[in-house]
């Protein structure tokens, strides 16, 4: 056991897998000698060699295409897209290729690759270093989409993703790399070390894909969240003084529908929180599923608290970010309804 922040946990997951499996390799922009702009691959090249962890040209499409070819050969590439905002040049290779190989070749070929990429705002990155594109990937049959909210989950989920034989989009909430940010940007930053989930085994372990975590049990209402928003949801529960059940989805696809349904059937009320823009965000799918599965238990409209349908504005992060204030308001509305 060691105390790790999320970057260290992610680094440890790759280190463990590079050590266990000679077919695992890591590449992306600045991930080699430098160790990545967020330091996620720090030390991996030195320890495992330049052929196991190396830099690439700045061509996200090429990075993903090459990983697909390697996967078809039999390797398990882990690629880093420096920011989720820059994954779009690789979109065709992800949607038309990585996601489709297995189906169109009837299992002959597949792409056992993991695409790691930091997402989300709250670091004054402006509109091209803050986006949350997860919903788009959940619309693509053949892709899995995973988002951790703690160091422990990050390592366990990443190892599961690496060993998965399907392509996994592994979105890392960069705002909580170094501490469990709860949306109270005016308060001092908390380090992970104070959080129980920073206790991370040094070695190999997995957190399964497709299983959500009930991070707080409660009876008043259900909050569905993932990534940074899990911590915002918990803080909002405190602030609201309500007995909310907070569910950390962890995998968006496959989704743990049973845990979601069970909770909403119990509480009858549901608030969905994400940082991505609202329209056609993953909250829409969650709302649709919840009303399909729990209609007769619902006592209030399902609320979505999300980023606004605008780019992420540099100077207005805290007006844009769906923080505790807005979540609490939504919780109250849902309770009063």
């Amino acid at each position, binding site marked *: 056991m060691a105390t790790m922040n999320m970057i260290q946990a992610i680094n440890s997951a790759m280190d463990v897998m590079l050590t266990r499996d000679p077919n695992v390799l890591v590449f992306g922009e600045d991930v080699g000698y430098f160790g990545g702009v967020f330091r996620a691959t720090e030390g991996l090249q030195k320890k495992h060699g330049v052929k196991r962890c190396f830099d*690439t040209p700045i061509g996200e*499409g090429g990075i993903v295409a090459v990983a697909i*070819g390697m996967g*078809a050969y039999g390797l398990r590439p882990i690629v880093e897209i420096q920011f989720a905002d820059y994954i779009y040049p690789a979109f065709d290779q992800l949607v038309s290729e990585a996601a489709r190989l297995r189906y169109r070749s009837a299992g002959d070929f597949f792409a056992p690759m993991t695409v790691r990429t930091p997402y989300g705002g709250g670091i004054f990155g402006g509109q091209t270093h803050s986006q949350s594109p997860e919903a788009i990937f959940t619309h693509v049959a*053949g892709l899995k989409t995973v988002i951790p909210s703690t160091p422990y989950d990050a390592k366990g989920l990443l190892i599961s993703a690496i060993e998965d034989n399907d392509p996994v989009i592994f979105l890392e909430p960069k705002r909580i790399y170094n501490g469990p940010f709860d949306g109270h940007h005016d308060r001092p930053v908390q380090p992970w070390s104070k959080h129980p989930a920073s206790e991370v085994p040094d070695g190999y372990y997995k957190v399964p894909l497709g299983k959500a975590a009930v991070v707080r049990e409660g009876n008043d209402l259900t909050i569905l969240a993932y990534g940074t928003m899990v911590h915002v949801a918990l803080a909002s529960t405190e602030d609201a003084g309500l007995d909310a059940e907070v569910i950390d989805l962890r995998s968006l696809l496959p989704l743990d529908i049973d845990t979601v349904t069970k909770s909403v059937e119990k509480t009858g009320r549901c608030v969905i929180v994400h940082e991505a823009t609202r329209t056609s965000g993953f909250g829409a799918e969650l709302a649709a599923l919840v009303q399909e599965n729990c209609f007769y238990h619902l006592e209030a409209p399902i609320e979505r608290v999300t980023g606004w349908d605008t780019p992420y504005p540099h100077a207005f992060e805290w007006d844009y970010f769906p923080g505790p204030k807005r979540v609490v308001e939504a919780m109250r509305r849902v309770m009063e309804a």
Partner: protein
Amino acid sequence: MKNRKPLSLHIPEPEARPGEQPDFSAIKVPEAGSVRRPDPDAPDHEIRDLAYSLIRVLDDKAAAVGPWNPRLDPETLRRGLRVMMLTRAYDDRMYRAQRQGKTSFYMKCTGEEACSIAAAFALDRDDMCFPSYRQQGILIARGYPLVTMMCQVYSNELDPLKGRQLPIMYSSKKNSFFTISGNLGTQFPQAVGWAMASAYKGDDRIAASWIGDGTTAEGDFHQALNFASVYRAPVILNVVNNQWAISSFSGFAGGEETTFASRAIGYGLPGLRVDGNDFLAVYAATDWAATRARNNNGATLIELYTYRAEGHSTSDDPTRYRPSDEWKAWPLGDPIERLKDHLIALGEWSEERHEQTQKEVVEEVRAANKEAESHGVLGGDKKPSVKTMFEDVYEEMPWHLRRQRQQLGV
């Protein structure tokens, strides 16, 4: 505006449109044998001239001449000829099947057979191919059963791809033939990745990929050449320049300004420009590039200069945009006729044996088709179980797909 001559926009135009005379006068065809053959390990900057010449082995008298002559034994040449004839017969039969409503779509490679088949002959059987939809010749060269190919075209009960893919989008890992994508060019950088993996593992298998002239315009073309250059990937990147991309001539891919082979130069890669209708030239160039790759000297870009003799696909009518008799005027002829004439010139073949072989391949195709059709054609009831529609989206079927399958009641 200042007192300057106004700018004007240039829009490329082909030499001839329907109703006009085919005009290939702009194409300079060098003498067979006239292009030098450098050492396969020569530095790229010493061989840039090869991107602007045209490697040819078969001369006008059907003799094999010059430094690129691979000196293949007659038996190999006869096999090559037969595979090309078989491929053309297969195309004709499948084209007819589509016209007869037995499938939805088909694409021929008529006139371009050497581009895939001679290359397949020069490669090892386990070198990995990342083809476009016009390299069915590779599968036939490697002995993939015609019946199986036809079952894919018919999406019938024996379709190895379970009725999921458009006709001709074959896949056969056993034959080192990558699953064909409908999205142009995506396989080019994937081939580079496969080759990088082979190098990473210290394997000795190389990769080869094929795209068309029009497809060079996709960003993936650039990704492939750049990654291949940076990591010196053991891969052969073929551009089949058949002059047309559906209705657009190669000028809309940049072919008006220079050669496609010369694209290699800016990446520090060798670019070979080859007579794509010359079986021996294609074989020799592929062999040269394979040797280079196996010696850890990295990738080669090969432009295979040819002509798309028929429509783009069964959905296309080429008489709407080019002279109908253009192929007859094509200065590089027909790869089958040229290899046939060569074998005859060698005294290793005859009109009679050729006719005989033609009968054989047609019969072979007919028999295969009979068997394939007995397992169903598109729209018939002999097809894979509907259940399979929900399989292979993921390795394990997630709950939402299981639920959807139940909703469909299968």
